[in-house]
């Protein structure tokens, strides 16, 4: 009883001290809880499908952020990880009949391997050269896949990949919690010493190297970590939608950057929020409720992205965060913008 009450009070302290002090964290928690119980309120197949795909893309966008947002190594061909994992998972499942719990990790490992392969040559390249070089990888693979249809099933993709679970709701309860867990892991990585090094590499690689950081190793690590998470997303996608050429397309590589930049890069939660705002907006709100004709949704989508970025060039979530929160100059903790002194160290906030 005593032990339990200690844990409860610690739990309570964590919530009041870490989560409820900031409106942003409270909102995030409430939204997560709402989305967790959402299928119980309205098990609408279509909305669940959109939310499942949004969760998959959220993992994918966050993994782009881990690589490009944090280390500044802009990856224009992020679809390579997604596509390789999707094809690996799909082919293993279709040809060998492996179950999803085996194919998704193997697919993710394949994506890590790809991260290593494209990471090593890309270490010599910087900035725009790197961006355009990475753009090439998924397109090269796409060409090869379409040229050997007897192995890869060409244009149409792998004919049949087993679903993740029997029902839509069950799939939702696999994919959505994994998104939260993986997103949390990425956020923790970004918050750790590794994340700090990634920040340093983006800000000034030469200085980072001069401070004794093996930037080569950390950049490779970023490629592999990003590949791992993007690979998990790709494997989930293969088992939920399909594994076809669309998983390697240029548009997917661009789309992930759109989501991430829209939400705000170098935050992890920004890209996740970006996907959860933009993807359902495009798929549900515009077509279902506002009755916008299908051919106009893409136009409106592009306009929304354009307008938002024109006024909030740092991204929507970053902008909101900067409006509602202040960082303590002494202890670097987040505070509500209305406070005049820091909630922990009572230093004066400007």
């Amino acid at each position: 009883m005593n032990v339990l009450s200690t844990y409860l009070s610690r739990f309570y302290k964590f919530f009041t001290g870490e989560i409820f002090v900031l409106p942003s964290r409270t909102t995030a928690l409430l939204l997560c809880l709402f989305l967790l119980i959402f299928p119980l309120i309205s098990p609408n197949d279509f909305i669940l499908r959109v939310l499942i795909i949004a969760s998959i893309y959220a993992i994918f966008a966050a993994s782009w952020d881990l690589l490009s947002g944090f280390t500044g190594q802009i990856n224009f061909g992020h679809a390579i990880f997604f596509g390789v994992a999707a094809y690996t998972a799909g082919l293993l499942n279709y040809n060998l009949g492996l179950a999803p719990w085996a194919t998704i990790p193997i697919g993710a490992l394949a994506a890590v391997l790809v991260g290593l392969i494209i990471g090593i040559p890309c270490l010599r390249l910087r900035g725009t050269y790197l961006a355009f070089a990475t753009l090439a990888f998924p397109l090269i693979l796409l060409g090869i896949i379409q040229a050997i249809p007897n192995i890869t099933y060409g244009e149409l993709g792998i004919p049949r990949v087993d679903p993740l679970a029997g029902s839509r709701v069950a799939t939702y309860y696999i994919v959505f919690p994994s998104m939260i867990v993986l997103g949390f892991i990425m956020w923790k990585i970004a918050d750790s010493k590794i994340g700090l090094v990634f920040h340093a590499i983006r800000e000034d690689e030469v200085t980072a190297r001069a401070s004794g950081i093996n930037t080569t190793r950390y950049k490779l690590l970023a490629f592999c970590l990003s590949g791992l998470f993007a690979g998990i997303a790709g494997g989930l996608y293969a088992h939920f939608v399909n594994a076809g050429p669309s998983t390697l397309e240029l548009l997917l590589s661009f789309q992930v950057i759109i989501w991430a930049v829209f939400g705000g890069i170098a935050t992890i939660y920004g890209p996740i929020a970006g996907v959860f705002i933009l993807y359902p907006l495009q798929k549900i709100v515009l077509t279902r409720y506002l009755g916008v004709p299908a051919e106009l949704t893409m136009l409106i989508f592009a306009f929304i992205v354009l307008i938002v970025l024109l006024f909030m060039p740092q991204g929507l979530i970053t902008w909101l965060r900067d409006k509602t929160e202040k960082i303590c100059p002494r202890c670097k903790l987040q505070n509500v913008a209305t406070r005049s002194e820091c909630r922990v160290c009572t230093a004066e906030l400007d």
Partner: protein
Amino acid sequence: MAENIIVYGLVWSGVYALLAIGFSLIFGVARIVNLAHTAFYMLAAYLIFHLNTAAGLNVYLSVFLAIIIVTITGTLSYRLIIARIRQHESTTLIVTIALAVIFQEAVLKGFGGTFVSGPKLISGETGIFGVGVLNQHLLTFGVVLLLLLATWAFLMKTRTGVAIRATAQDREVANLMGINVPGMEMITMAISAALAAIAGALVAPLGVLTPGMWMHPLIMILAVVVLGGLGSLKGSLIGAFILGFSEILVVFLAPSGAFLKTSVALTIMLIVIMIKPEGLFGIVFEEERG
């Protein structure tokens, strides 16, 4: 076969060269990666087709009008949109993609998604060394050569050209020397959009037009400018010919070449920059030193 490879290789390399030089110019001067560049080319091709068929204008007049309209569109989109967010590199990428998608969807909505083919500027064919070459192809290649020379002369010989090159070399010092840097960027953007529009006018009669036709040339010119070295016009030109010809060679010679053409061109680009990370004729920019 061989004559086809040479003719198509020259024509497409020329088109890529025009596009890549426009892209390279605005990147060199304003450090803007304008992913909407080939959307201007698509827009011009469609405008020509519709001014000619729907509005019933003369072919030459519609070409002229289309180039003017696209140049103005390009300059305005730079002035009103891109210039405002250009400090944020990744935001610029997204905004220019969004622009390209907006143009694509606007064309799809306005002109429809059916495959159409632009009007021929001239018909007939000429015998060269006993091989019949379509006059349209000759015209394309001639215009490309002329424009490349004109761009070169403009940049090397005129006062404005010198100012543009100075801005590309070092913005701050150029500013201190009394060069109107934002003005130069506007002029460069106009030239860049005009080159893209002319490339569109040259391509319109050669193949089918689709609203998605900007995607493939965009990939190719990104590969071309990286292969040649960012900001180097000579590099863009040579890169365009290397990749243009390799693409055509693969299409004509390799089995299932239509699928593999992009793969091969991109692989060549990757191999070159693995060996020489700054491209063939790359310039190391001021802020990228160190």
